[in-house]
Every structure is written in structure tokens, then in C-alpha cells.
């Protein structure tokens, strides 16, 4: 399906809204840009068109990316780079000094390693569950069921909710006197300290993040399933293939491109988990749900002694992980083709 057919139907209201809003700016800008063109000629115009974007992009994305290296290689608590002494790789060394890498307590920067371990565990379990849940749901939605549109939006609705709202909704359900404990007690069991127990908190962070984002990946997989030609299934059933064979030999291989997209996107997202957990557990209990981005945030912004160098170094480590993940996706895509 093309973008065209998608928005054909939005046309009316949205189109008119965009028209009237943009129309106003456009007529003012008409005059300005007409003058500029007379002045620099037609060959200069593309530069004029990319300029606003490049300026914003350069100042707020590209420049900070380079500046990150400056922060990572300088120390102290000063905020302005020119007042920060050069320390070379000291920040990275501080992050990576461990007597025993499997035990965060023996590390100089134990919080960093806790965040690394927490994030790794979270990413593996969350992505695994996410892929399974969205694949299962997409397969069910791809059956001949009535009201498919309704069910599709049921799964999708939480995707639009802000992470803060999602966190509060679940905090309210899982708190000591919440709905879930109410149900548990009415069944005759004891209350469970969902938000106070480290393992439970980790468990629920995984569950609610799957709950919140699942609809997005389900949509991608469903689109993939629906693009598999149905005559393949007919041919398989004529040949007497059972359901499992059909699934393993037809559905899965043909769904691979979408599976790769889902896997990589959910990996990249999972590595960056922040706002949901920040509002849900605040990283706690203790450091049980402290993940990488929150470590960076707390080093740079919320701890009393601001260690910008450590924050920048840690964020470069994370950027490295994200770049590797993106490269893997590119490689797999190339192999597909």
C-alpha cells in the first residue's frame, strides 16, 4: 500500500488544516525567497532550501555529537568545555575498571555496570517476549476473523500513549493497594510487593513495555503476513502440508524481512529505555531497574556532583552498541536481497 492511498482519506480535514496554516507562511515567504533568487540565481536556490534544516540539524544534532567526544575526553565538574582539563581515556578507564567483570560491586563505577547488566537482561528478555507476542498476535489477526480493524486498534492504542501515562496507569494497578493485589487477596492469597521487590519490578518493566509497544510491531508483521500470496497456501494444502509445515516452510521464510525489522527496531528501542521506567520505578527499588540512559541522565543532570565526562563516555559506549545493531540490520538486509 502506498502513502498516497493512506492519506487519501485523511485528505479533507487534515489537508485543509495544512493548507490554511502553511498558506499563510508561504505567502510571506514568497516575497522573501523571490528576492533571494533574483540575487543569487537559480543555482544557489537548493542551498537556500536545505539551509534551515542544515542549520538546526548541524547546531542541535551534528555539533553535539562531535562535542560529546570533547566531554568524554575531559574531566572535572566544569560545564564549559574550555574549562575542562584534558584527561584522555581516563573516563573510559574509570568506566571499565573492574576486578571481576561479572560482579558490579568490584567495579570502580559500579552503577555503570549495574546499568549495563540490567539493560542487557532487560533487552534480551523484553525483545524475546516482544517478538513472540507480536508475532503471535499478528498470526491471530491474520486469520479470517470478524472486526479485525477493531482488534488491531485494541493492540495499537497503547502505542500512542505517552510513556509517562503508561507508567502511571500500571503503577496505579500494581501498587500495594492496587487492583492486582485486590484480585490476589480476594482469591485468598497474600499481597505481592510488585514495586518493592527487585525481581518483580524488573518483571513488570518488561511486561508493561511490551504492553505499550507491542501494537507497533504487530502492525509491521501483519502487513508482512498480508503480503504473502494466498496461492502459496493453497498449493501447500493441495500437497497435504499440515499447519506446522505451512508455517515453518512458507510463512516464516516469507516473513523474514519484517521479522528482521521488528527485531532490530525493538532492540534499538530496548537499549534506550528511559522515560517509561523513570516514571514507573525511578530506577528502583535500589538500582534494580537502573538502565543505561538513566545512568547517563543521572550522571550528567541529577546527581549533586555532575560528572559530565562519565556521562559522555557512557553515552559513547551506548552509541557504539546502537551503531553495531544498525550495521547488523544493514548486513542482514543485504543478505536478504
Amino acid at each position: 500500500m502506498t502513502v498516497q492511498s493512506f492519506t487519501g482519506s485523511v485528505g479533507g480535514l487534515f489537508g485543509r488544516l495544512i493548507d490554511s496554516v502553511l498558506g499563510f507562511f508561504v505567502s510571506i515567504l514568497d516575497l522573501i525567497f523571490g528576492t533571494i533568487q533574483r540575487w543569487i540565481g537559480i543555482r544557489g536556490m537548493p542551498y537556500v532550501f536545505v539551509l534551515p534544516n542544515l542549520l538546526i540539524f548541524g547546531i542541535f544534532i551534528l555539533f553535539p555529537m562531535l562535542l560529546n567526544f570533547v566531554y568524554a575526553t575531559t574531566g572535572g565538574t566544569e560545564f564549559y568545555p574550555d574549562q575542562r582539563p584534558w584527561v584522555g581515556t581516563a573516563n573510559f578507564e574509570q568506566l571499565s575498571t573492574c576486578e571481576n567483570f561479572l560482579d558490579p560491586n568490584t567495579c570502580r563505577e559500579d552503577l555503570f555496570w549495574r546499568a549495563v547488566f540490567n539493560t542487557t537482561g532487560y533487552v534480551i528478555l523484553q525483545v524475546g517476549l516482544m517478538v513472540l507476542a507480536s508475532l503471535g498476535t499478528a498470526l491471530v489477526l491474520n486469520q479470517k476473523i470478524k472486526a479485525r480493524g477493531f482488534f488491531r486498534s485494541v493492540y495499537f492504542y497503547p502505542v500512542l500513549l505517552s510513556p509517562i501515562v503508561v507508567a502511571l496507569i500500571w503503577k496505579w494497578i500494581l501498587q500495594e493497594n492496587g487492583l492486582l493485589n485486590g484480585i490476589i487477596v480476594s482469591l485468598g492469597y497474600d499481597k505481592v510487593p510488585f514495586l518493592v521487590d527487585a525481581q518483580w519490578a524488573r518483571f513488570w518493566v518488561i511486561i508493561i513495555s511490551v504492553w505499550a509497544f507491542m501494537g507497533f510491531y504487530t502492525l509491521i508483521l501483519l502487513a508482512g503476513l498480508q503480503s504473502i500470496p494466498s496461492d502459496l497456501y493453497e498449493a501447500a494444502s493441495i500437497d497435504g502440508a499440515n499447519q506446522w509445515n505451512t508455517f515453518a516452510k512458507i510463512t516464516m521464510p516469507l516473513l523474514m524481512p519484517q521479522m528482521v525489522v521488528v527485531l532490530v527496531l525493538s532492540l534499538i528501542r530496548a537499549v534506550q529505555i528511559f522515560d517509561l521506567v523513570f516514571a514507573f520505578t525511578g530506577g528502583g527499588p535500589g538500582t534494580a531497574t537502573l538502565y543505561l540512559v538513566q545512568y547517563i541522565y543521572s550522571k550528567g543532570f541529577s546527581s549533586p556532583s555532575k560528572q559530565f565526562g562519565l556521562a559522555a563516555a557512557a553515552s559513547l559506549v551506548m552509541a557504539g552498541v546502537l551503531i553495531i545493531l544498525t550495521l547488523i540490520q544493514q548486513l542482514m538486509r543485504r543478505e536478504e536481497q
Partner: protein
Amino acid sequence: MGRIWGFLTRTRGGNKLHITDMITYLYLGLSVIIMFVPVVWLVLSSFKSSAEVVKFPPRLLPYRQETVEIEGYDEPLPLYEVSLEDGSTAVLAQTRRVGLEAQMIDPQNPDDIIKVNIEDRKPVESVYFGLDNYIEGVQSFNFARYLRNSVIVTIAATILTLLVNSMAAFALSKYRFRGRDLIFLIMISTLMVPLSVVLVPVFLVITEVGWNNNLLGVIVPGAATPTGVFLLRQYMLTIPDELLDAARIDGASEWRIYSQIILPLSKPALAVLAIFSVMWRWNDFLWPLIVLSRSEMFTLQVGLNSFQGELNVQWHLILAMTVLTLLPITIVFAFLQRNITTGIATTGLK
């Protein structure tokens, strides 16, 4: 009715209920519960009073104690169902409570005071959806201010995003110029770089520009999204160049070509980007959290989060404010549901 029954009992193989159908509908039924109950529970709870909210075990619907106005008392008196000593029950109004003893009066006969052990009385309640939490929340939470900030950020940022990205996409798709491929390459390569990676230096840049605690600091930086440029460029590539050449022969300026030909033709892609931009900006948290530190500049998401930190126990207000925060997105979803879902399925964006 017959049709509904027919739908509910419809099966794969004729009249026999196939096992796959059962699993399918069981799965769907369960997941509707899991996906919807949390939100429904939030909305129901948001109408509960501060006393009701902390009650355990929680009740499904919000209740309010019935009261009665009796002459001689300034405040309306709460009504209780009291079991009296002679074994009968009566509905009485409580005037005051002293320790374990409550002083009650009969609303019909307000002169006699009946003393009752508080164990023997039960409040008379009825289901009540009141806006008390919402009103109190809006007043104490500065909701109007946060809402205003969020609306300004969302609208201004979306307009800026559409304008700036469509201009860049136009240049990148319709001109050959020195440096074009380099610009495109750099933009694409930062597609996957999230804000969290450049947190510290971005804060420095914002400070240097002087946009700390300024909504501009939230609006402008995110406007040049590589995703937006990419999406619009792919779409504009499908617009035939002959259209532009014809306009040039007619003496149109390049800006006119962009605004009168390219923009109207790209409306479908612009609409996709507009929907995404509204979603991104309304729900954005980390960026405003860093840029805004004065509470009167907070957006809804930052405000809501700091609100739950400040008043940790005031769940009745937090719940009401959470409902108000998710309401606009829910309304947008209700109207544009089909477009949003198809848009995501086709572009793979979120």
C-alpha cells in the same frame, strides 16, 4: 441478534467448532481485557474520592457517601445505615463522632440524638461520577499552564517540522548540486542516533543559545528530523520533473514551484509526518525534562511526572490528571485510527 450469534459461533469447518477458532477467540478475548482494562481502570478510579482511592480492596466503581441537609447544621450530614439495639436497621445522619461513639439523628425527627457504636453503622453510598478530582487537580497542578505549553510546543514544532523538512526534501530530491549526496548521507547516518546519546552536549548548546527554560529550546532542535526529510524526499522523488520545468518556462520562481506545486502534491506524505510529529511532541519527555527546569514552563508530560514525585500519596489527583493527559491523543486516535495504523504499517515509523 441472530446475526450476532451467527458471528460469535462462526467457525472454520462448517458447524463444528474448530480448535484453532477457539484458540483465536480466546486469545483475542484475553488480549482485549489485558489491553483495555488498565485504561478503563484508570478512568474509573479517577472519579474516586481521596478516601475511596486508598481503600483496600478497591471497588470497581466510584462511590460517594449520601448526605442529607438538616436544618440547624451548616454542613450536609453523612448518612449511615445503622443496626439498632432492638435488631432493626435505620438510615440515620451522623452529626459528630466522639471516639468509638457516633452521635446520630433521624432526618425525619432531627431533635433526638441517638448514640451508636461506630462498629454498628455502615455508610449509605451511591455510584457517583464527580469532577471533584479534576477541578482540584487543575487548580493545584497548574494543569492549564502545562496544557498551554504542550499545545504550543506540539503545534509550533509540527509546523516548523513540516516546513523545514519539506524544503530540505525538495532540494535533495529535485536539484543536482555540489554536496547534495554528502548532506543526504550525513542525515541518513544520524537516523538512528537518539537524543540520549548526545544529552550533555545538547544541554550545553541549548544553554549557549539561551534557550534554557524557553519553549523554543523544546520546539526547534527536534524540528530537523532525518526521518521526516527521508520520508518526504522519497515521496517527492515520485513527482515528475516535467511539472517543474513547465512551471519554470512559465516564469515561476523556485520558491513558487516549491509552494504551489511540490507542497500540494506532497500532501499525503506531509499528513503522515504531521500525525507523527504531533504524536512525538505531545508524548516527548526526555528533551523537555532537560531543557525546562522552571515548573511554569513544564509540558504536560514533565509536569505529570514531577507531580507524581511531589505528591506521592495524592493518587486521586494524579489519576485525574493522567486521564486529562491521555484524552487528546485518544480523541485523535478515535478519529484518525485507520490512517495512523496504515501509515505506520506502510512507513515503518513511529
